[in-house]
């Protein structure tokens, strides 16, 4: 190594390392909102499936799935405009989405099995909030790690 840093140069380098970042506030907000909206979308899908399956509404179910696909596609398109993701984003997002989808799958199994005697909205709506919760938690975590 030809040039070795002095104490002041080492301090300056450490300060520079703290300050430089490829992550903008805009990207951070975009990823937080994307993760939260994804959780709310899956929760809304669960409620819509319960409503349509419970009422034997095949056309309604088809419309719900098409709308879900369109909104999901738009959300992913919007999220992919982020130029950087904070360290830890993939992990928090993966856990949040994984748990939300697991709760969704359990919920769908439940409303399908009980479709002849549809579950009460007093049970379904709190469960939908539970479905969204992991993604909302992940969004909160992403907001915290990105600061």
């Amino acid at each position: 190594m030809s040039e070795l840093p002095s104490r002041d140069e080492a301090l300056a380098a450490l300060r520079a390392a703290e300050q430089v970042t490829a992550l903008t506030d805009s990207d951070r907000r975009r990823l937080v909102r994307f993760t939260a909206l994804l959780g709310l979308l899956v929760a809304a899908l669960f409620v819509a499936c319960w409503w349509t399956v419970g009422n034997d509404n095949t056309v309604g179910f088809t419309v719900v799935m098409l709308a879900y696909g369109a909104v999901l596609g738009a959300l992913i398109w919007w999220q992919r405009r982020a130029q950087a993701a904070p360290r830890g984003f993939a992990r928090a997002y993966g856990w949040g989405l994984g748990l939300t989808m697991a709760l969704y799958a359990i919920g769908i199994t439940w409303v399908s099995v009980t479709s002849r005697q549809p579950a009460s909205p007093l049970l379904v709506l709190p469960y939908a909030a539970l479905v969204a919760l992991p993604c909302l938690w992940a969004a909160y975590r992403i907001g915290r790690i990105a600061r």
Partner: protein
Amino acid sequence: MTDQQHARFQLDEVIHAPVRFSIVAALAKVDEAEFAAVRDAVQVSDSVLSKQVTLLEQAGYVVVKKGYVGKRPRTWLRLSPAGVDAFQAHLAALRAIAGQ
């Protein structure tokens, strides 16, 4: 302490160069970032960033991924595990030199 044990000998020669140090420092805070975001953060030209990233990639410190967003070609950069370790060791050596 012998000369070889001094903290300055623990500095990573690849990361020590100012532009490469800034690139690695910027990537240390993200899972991955687009080429343009790193260029703006480090405030260098495309050609300078491209050249330095190639050196970091050859050292095994940076992983380059090419793809598309819509029809637009994009390049994403991220630190490899070896890059993360090397950067942490480099920072530790700088802290030792700085007396922190």
